[in-house]
């Protein structure tokens, strides 16, 4: 069981969890398996102990206090670009408590509205899709990972619109 304490609220209910159709399900299962994998291992007598469980994030492992983990998100300022805008902006991710605050700020900054989002289908309707580049250099949809992991994994933000966004929309 996960007792993730994020700003003293259990944000599991309000977490954005986005992905391609079908992938949402897998993520759900992965989430569940990481939450209950400890239990699953030991409930069934047939379970083998020698094979390591799936490499999902196990709660409380490695045993590093969240206080330390939070401090290691060294760079908090990230560049934000929007397709078609003449110049970039910089924002401090640490000043936001969750995705909705971040997205609201981006909407204000660049004068656009993000469409309706759903877990399965991402951002639909407005032709605007917020994406980010993560530590491994891959471009991800904003909202994929739990908020408290986001500042440390996000290197830069890009708000896609126009044809790129439409292509993404239809892929979803």
């Amino acid at each position, binding site marked *: *069981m*996960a*007792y*993730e*304490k994020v700003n*003293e609220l259990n944000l599991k209910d309000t977490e954005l969890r986005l992905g391609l159709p079908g992938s949402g399900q897998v993520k759900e299962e992965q989430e569940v398996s990481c939450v209950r994998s*400890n*239990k699953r*291992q*030991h*409930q069934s007598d047939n379970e083998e*102990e020698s094979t*390591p*469980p799936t*490499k999902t*994030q*196990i*709660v*409380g*492992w*490695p*045993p*590093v*206090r*969240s*206080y*330390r*983990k939070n*401090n*290691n998100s*060294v760079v908090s300022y990230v560049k934000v670009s929007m397709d078609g805008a003449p110049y970039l902006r910089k924002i401090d991710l640490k000043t936001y408590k969750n995705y909705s605050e971040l997205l609201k700020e981006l909407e204000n900054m660049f004068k656009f509205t993000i469409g309706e989002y759903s877990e399965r289908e991402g951002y639909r309707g407005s032709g605007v899709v917020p994406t980010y580049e993560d530590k491994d250099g891959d471009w991800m949809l904003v909202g994929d990972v739990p908020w408290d992991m986001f500042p440390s994994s996000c290197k830069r933000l890009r708000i896609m619109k126009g044809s790129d966004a439409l292509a993404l929309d239809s892929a979803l």
Partner: protein
Amino acid sequence: MSEDDEDQSPATDLRSQPPCSPNKSRNCISSSQTFPDHVLENVLENVLQFLDSRCDRNAASLVCKLWWKVEGLTRSEVFIGNCYALSPARLTQRFKRVRSLLLKGKPRFADFNLMPADWGANFAPWVSTMAKAYPWLEKVDLKRMFVTDDDLALLAESFPGFKELILVCCEGFGTSGIAVVANKCRKLKVLDLIESDVTDDEVDWVSCFPEDVTCLESLAFDCVEAPINFKALEGLVGRSPLLRKLRLNRFVSLEEVHRLLLLGAPQLTSLGTGSFSRGDQSQQEPPDYAAAFRACKSVVCLSGFRELMPEYLPAILPVCANLTSLNFSYANISPDMFKPIIHNCHKLQIFWALDSICDEGLQAVAATCKELRELRIFPFDPREDTEGPVSELGLQAISEGCRKLESLLYFCQHMTNAALIAMSHNCPELTVFRLCIMGRLRPDHVTGKAMDEGFGAIVKNCKKLTRLAVSGLLTDQAFRYMGEYGKLIRTLSVAFAGDSDMALRHVLEGCPRLQKLEIRDSPFGDVALRSGMHRYYNMRFVWMSACRLTMGCCKDVARAMPNLVVEVIGSDDDDVNRDYVETLYMYRSLDGPRKDAPQFVTIL
């Protein structure tokens, strides 16, 4: 720096009845019959007041009824390792003149989200009881307790001579509670907030200190995630002539630290810098930071370095030669940035850092820091399957260079038995050995074998070992070694290890000094639990989560041991398998099960 300090002696003997009948002739003052009791008491009081050590005091209190009583009158420092081992009322009944209280609450695994919030460890009943009983209380030191602003307010109002408040890994309060303490505790010498979760109530607590000269000797607020009024802080430092230790938070910029140092640097012995980066990137020349550090002639302990801009690191060079303690564990420093610094730290005894310094950095430590006693290497990227910049190479180098090493905490991705065996031979002074191989169930990455021999060598050759944390792939054999050789072990942490109940049995049957046992995700079940029943009254606590315990067995243990509180912690929507015990936390208690247990805790 106080993460998981070891306590040196067993828990206070707080039984309500004196231990032996007064008729037995253990009274070593043979002429006692000729003196009236109160004279004898006075004599004893005058003698016993010199006893400082807990161990000695516990022993003295066992001599006879009179000694028990007088010891209770003269004990001024009380240590309570588990706040639920007794009630506040029992404390105040037994000890009448307490000046200093050290109280610990939640078990350590609560730090890693293995326990729901609101489990307990409330300071409230303690402070309200002590407010009436100990008007002369001077010091409160809490670890992993839940403390509210109201508790702090009551503390500030109830103890006019209050001098020292230390809160380590605590939560439940905010800057408004701190403000009350700052304002009302006029004799305050120490205000140390260490790795605590302090809510930002947007209160300017620094301005709340009284306006005249203060008694402050130590002020640590590096964990307070809230901006502070720097001008007020400057003023405070300026009127605190006794200030020796100052740990700032990351909202104090480097320029501001510079100003503070020019104000009060020569007296400071311990400095925690705030943010080590240029806040205002304006065109003007940066101040001469090195000059500020040059003024720190007495600084022997340095920490902080949040949001580090590495190009400013060389500013600390003037103090390096004097440093006995250096904490870089919040700074992402590369080996190239690190080596020129550590090269000067010949006197270093305590060193904490992130693994970003790599094996190369550790080799530099080994080459220079011959006096090193304590090393802690934390992971910059605490995930399981990353590359890992430190390995057995770094550990081997440390073991060869730092022969006086006593305490180790090391996070890595891979390890070898050979490196552990080498360390066991090179570092005979080791008392604390905590190795965390972050990849679960990882074997020796060179030989492919389990890590049994490595840990076996540690318990066998490090004869002073009192604290051990194991990791990696471990079979029952490793535990056989622990049971056979780990005769002084008091604290043991196990995660994802062992094959069967036998492993835990070896430990429970073989380690007579075991006090604190914390186990997670290991295949130990009822047989193992039952095998330790002869030990549980002599232990502070046992934690077992995600093991193989059943409710039935836990109930049996609870029934057989009435002075043991057996808590089963789990979500109550768990209809699937009611017999399975997710988390067992059990501890001895003089006052029975607690009354403040939340819904998700079942006390058997």
